[in-house]
């Protein structure tokens, strides 16, 4: 196993918002937007990519470290905050990996300003009305059910490391915070924006990789199909046997797809 890369947390002022950013690795910037359950910690795949990039993870407001921002009332607003952070830090033009709701925010940024990213990886992406099926209503189930529904294999080592065992009061609080903020900005329509596909059709040749676990219970295949229809230049990868978190269920397959795409 590769040596674990040292990470640090910076607090970067974006307007009136002190955004906590986790950073690790050396090289050109690679943005990562975490999902609706929050930043899960530095994982195998982060470590691998940090050998070639500085992986930069802004922590979403109201998820524990970055304070709640009242004026952020949609994923488009959240994307606006992230875009301003990137512009002001000189990270414009970096590639991005967005997970689930983080992919929603990345797509909103790209829709408004395609040159903000050189390449875009959207994993189990929410944000578009699925062409078939429904986005799983994870706010209408208990925390435990929600977390369990994100993976196909609850025995996956990194899943067990992150979410296994008895949930501590702190974890309970953080999950509740995360789910409350997801409700606040994604409640209606639930985790998609009907204006987004129209704007995404204008992103030009922005290379976009769409990744989905074949057994994803959260984002149906119809989410991928919707992104394929909206964005002109997409490549899709299905990771067999994985659920909504292919990066922790099958890090090798995930990295293989991402490296091939970013390195190309």
């Amino acid at each position, binding site marked *: 196993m590769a040596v674990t890369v040292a990470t640090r947390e910076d607090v970067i002022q974006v307007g009136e918002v002190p955004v906590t950013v986790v950073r690790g690795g050396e090289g050109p910037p690679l943005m990562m937007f975490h999902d609706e359950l929050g930043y899960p910690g530095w994982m195998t795949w982060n470590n691998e990519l940090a050998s070639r990039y500085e992986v930069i993870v802004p922590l979403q407001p109201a998820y524990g470290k970055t304070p709640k921002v009242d004026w952020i009332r949609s994923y488009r607003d959240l994307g606006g905050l992230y875009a301003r952070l990137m512009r002001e830090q000189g990270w414009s033009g970096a590639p991005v990996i967005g997970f689930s709701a983080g992919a929603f925010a990345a797509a909103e940024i790209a829709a408004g300003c395609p040159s903000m990213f050189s390449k875009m990886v959207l994993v189990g992406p929410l944000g578009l009305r699925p062409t078939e099926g429904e986005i799983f209503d994870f*706010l*209408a189930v*208990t925390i435990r059910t929600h977390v369990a529904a994100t993976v196909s294999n609850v025995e996956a080592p990194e899943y067990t490391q992150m979410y296994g065992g008895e949930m501590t*009061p702190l974890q*309970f609080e953080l999950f509740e*915070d995360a789910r409350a*903020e997801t*409700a606040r900005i994604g*409640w209606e329509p639930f985790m998609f924006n009907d204006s987004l596909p129209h704007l995404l059709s204008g992103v030009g040749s922005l290379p976009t990789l769409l990744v989905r676990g074949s057994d994803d219970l959260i984002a149906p295949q119809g989410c991928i199909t919707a992104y394929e229809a909206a964005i002109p230049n997409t490549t899709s990868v299905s990771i067999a046997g994985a659920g909504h978190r292919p990066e922790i269920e099958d890090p090798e397959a995930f990295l293989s797809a991402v490296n091939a795409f970013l390195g190309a």
Partner: protein
Amino acid sequence: MHVAYFTERPYRWVPEDVVIRNKAFFAVPNTYFDHVRGADDYNYFLDEYCYAEELGFDGVALNEHHGNPFCMGNVMNVEASILARITNRVKIILIGNPLPVIKHPLRMAEELATIDLISRGRLVTGWVRGAGSEQFFNNANPAYNREMFEEAHDFIIQAWTRPGPWRYEGKHFHYRHVNPWALPYQKPHPPMIIPGVLSPETVKWSAEHSYPYIGLGTSLGPTADLWDYYADTAAEMGYQAGPENFGYLIPTFVADTDEKAQELGKGFIYGGGQTVFSAPQYTLPPGYNSKDAIRRLSKQPGGSWLGVNRNKLMQAAIDDDAPIDYEAIRARAEGQLRKSQRNYLTLLGSPDTIIDKVKTMLTVLRPGTFVFFGPQGPVPNEDRLRNLELLAKYVMPEIKAYAEEIGLRSPFETPPGDLKLRMGEARGAVVDRGAVPTVEG
């Protein structure tokens, strides 16, 4: 003291096993609804409220829930409008309109003003945040629940009192032309009453507005704690809280004999009763409770809020195929019913049996408003009516006399907030903890 009658207007024809299998009333499929029985019931419950007036109750209380056979008051203002016309004397008490769920405060202001006008000033309007399940049913964002509640409330007061037309640009509501022509009969507006299940935030908010707070079948000890909290807040606001600031509602079924009351009183646990109003994931949707409330919940895994605790929220999904021992569930519920009677959370019995219990509750909590919550479950109409008769004929005179003796004045006799405290003056007691009965396990 003001004595009122309340019923959830339950749909009494869902097989109990269906509710038990669903583990909750909310989300029972509406294929079990029969329109003929529904029509009969809506008419019956209106008649029942009229009968309560005829028997001498001071008020009739209604509430509203959605997607739930536990309570068929889905659009309470429609029922209240009819009662405004077909009753003559009783206060029409709404406990209450779920403002964040309805999401249209201008329409709400008009509807309530209409009820107040038709009843010639008998409306008592209460506000609630709406149960957690209501957020799902109405697609109301739970994370904005309290903000929307407070903004809608403030807007309605303005709509009733500020000469129009004017424009409103709030955070959650926006109106180009506010100029309602149906304005309340009562001036400056109908009296308010705030029902709740002991959310400290709601208790504080009620005290800040001098609105009476009505505890919905809450335990005596915690209720006393929260009423002290109300009184402390009231003192900070410069007034002495008293009985006029407090109300109490309790599930009650009275029959000619204790045996019959015990048997039919099992309707309160039909299907599991109030504790299975909705499943945990619907009772506490994300963002519905304050961060402080979630923190409290996280540190008390065994603690409970409306039957929900951290452990229940951490449970996995219901296994729909798991076998269910219906009789064991019913037996457990019966045990809970017995316990709730011992703990003064449910009153079942003949008039003689319950009078002393009510007096104890009045002594401890000193409410100026007391509401009898009528039977749940498949109780026949004639037994429901007999319950009302016995309450009115034997219980009400006794408890009203006792209330008079210990000085329990209603908010309609003593305006809440009128008794001012001088700067630095200590507030007086609002509860009598010495009278709290020993609670059995």
